């Protein structure tokens, strides 16, 4: 199977709070073709995200494929509530980096 860096086939890879208790990751694909293929093989699973972030699968709340934007969304439990003692990213805007090194299968 051919693989491509996610950064080559995605236009947007980002993280942000979804309220103070959740962190949400968005991947929006440049080309619907790549999105369709990855959705078809269900590449993005709770297990995949749990592995990337070194957290348990129970802390991955949801993985959603969103056709209108050719996008995948993963929502996880914040390790610390936004702005609480020890939290290091109040807006949750810099938690996307593990996705930047992902290589995903692609069709020809």
């Amino acid at each position, binding site marked *: 199977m051919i693989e491509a860096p996610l950064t080559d086939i995605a236009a947007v890879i980002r993280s942000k709070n979804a*309220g103070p208790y*959740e962190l*949400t990751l968005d991947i929006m694909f440049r080309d619907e073709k790549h999105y369709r293929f990855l959705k078809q093989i269900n590449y993005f699973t709770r297990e995949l995200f749990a592995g990337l972030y070194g957290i348990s699968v129970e802390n991955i709340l949801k993985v959603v494929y969103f056709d209108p934007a050719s*996008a995948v*969304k993963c929502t996880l439990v914040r390790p610390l509530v936004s702005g609480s*003692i020890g939290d290091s990213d109040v807006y949750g805007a*810099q938690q996307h980096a593990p996705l930047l090194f992902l290589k995903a299968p692609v069709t020809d």
Partner: protein
Amino acid sequence: MKNDSFKVLSPTAILGYGFPERSFVRGIEKRPDLIAVDAGSTDPGPYYLGAGKSFTSRSAVKRDLELMLGAALELSIPCIIGTAGGCGAREHVAWTEAIIQEIAREKGYRFKMAVIYADVAKAEVLRALQQGRVSPLHPAPHITAEDVENSVRIVAQMGAEPVFKAMELGPQIVLCGRCYDPVPFAAPAIMQGFDPGLAYHLGKILECAAIAATPGSGRDCVMGTLYPDSFELESLNEERKFTPTSTAAHTLYEKSDPFHLPGPGGTLDLSATRFEALDERRTRVSGTRFIPADPYTVKLEGVRRSGFRAISIGGIRDPILIGQIDSVLTEVKDQTREALGFTDPILFHVYGKDGVMGKLEPEKNRLAHELGLVIEVIAGDQEQANAVCSYARSTLLHYGYPGRISTAGNLALLYSPSDIPCGDVFEFSIYHLMEVADPEALFPIEISEVGL
């Protein structure tokens, strides 16, 4: 329905973020039926609700309001402001109200204003808790009566109903406390008979102004036009456009599930939503439905005080120290605790190691050639926080670690003074749904004549 279309002008994503006057004037020329803006967010964290302060600057909010009020009065259309002052508690509402009154005085404006408050008394939440009407928004934990008692401030997100009631009193300006973000944009249209699903979805997009356009911006104006079966979005700056993809993608922003967006009194269902290009720059949206919930719930937000903070910022460039940074910091923390008998939090944020991602950092063993360090202490009072921070900083500065050859000091301290008192620290304590029998009852309305 009075008319077959309803135009809403959204100048900016957050009141005080600003917008180009040119875009705004173009919007006014299109004769909107309403100017609305969202002023709030929980994103800046718990401090602003706890301290009763705004996260936007007074001068920036005044500048935006001057243009909005002037245009609303000129066109004789309403102007609705959601979540005044960023968090929408009484202090935030009063802060914004004072700015509006100042503008009216300076410009000689006279108008009727409705103010809707969103503070919830602890007794009210305690009663609801006892009656089993309070449930956590997962993954927030369950709360106890003690959590409610320890809260500094509690607000509830109002739905459209209190705004309907305020609008019936005929105000030019409606200033809302904490408010579901789409409400200022959607409520007047729903009152006129437009579909709530479409109106709220339009509001969801307009509350972020041009963020949903491409290129996106939180500081530019957008016109949304509602029809009986759809709505249309148009950027008021020629350099931006709403494409079906940019519009659809916005539904993902800061949300956990793009198909189901819960709010006061119901959920927005996007499973049958269609996004279509009208032309190069405009997009039409249809098919979004509002599913009313029974019982009606409002979201509560509350914070508690967690202490006082002091910090010190420095850098480390010595590779011998960098190589043993974890053990050195542990030793400095232990020595500080032991010397001062201090048991509250002492934290080291190590940038260049895992300062950004903390526990989520996958590359735990890769160190940069230089490290940025923030020493943080949280204590019961400011004086103690300062003293412990100072002790930890000086202990690290002169700490004799194994193999040390740089014996003059271990830190490049960024500032003089090196230790910075940061004041109050708050944390979110309530993020819960509360069932209510009457969607208006929690939100008292005051009506006044401004400029008289």
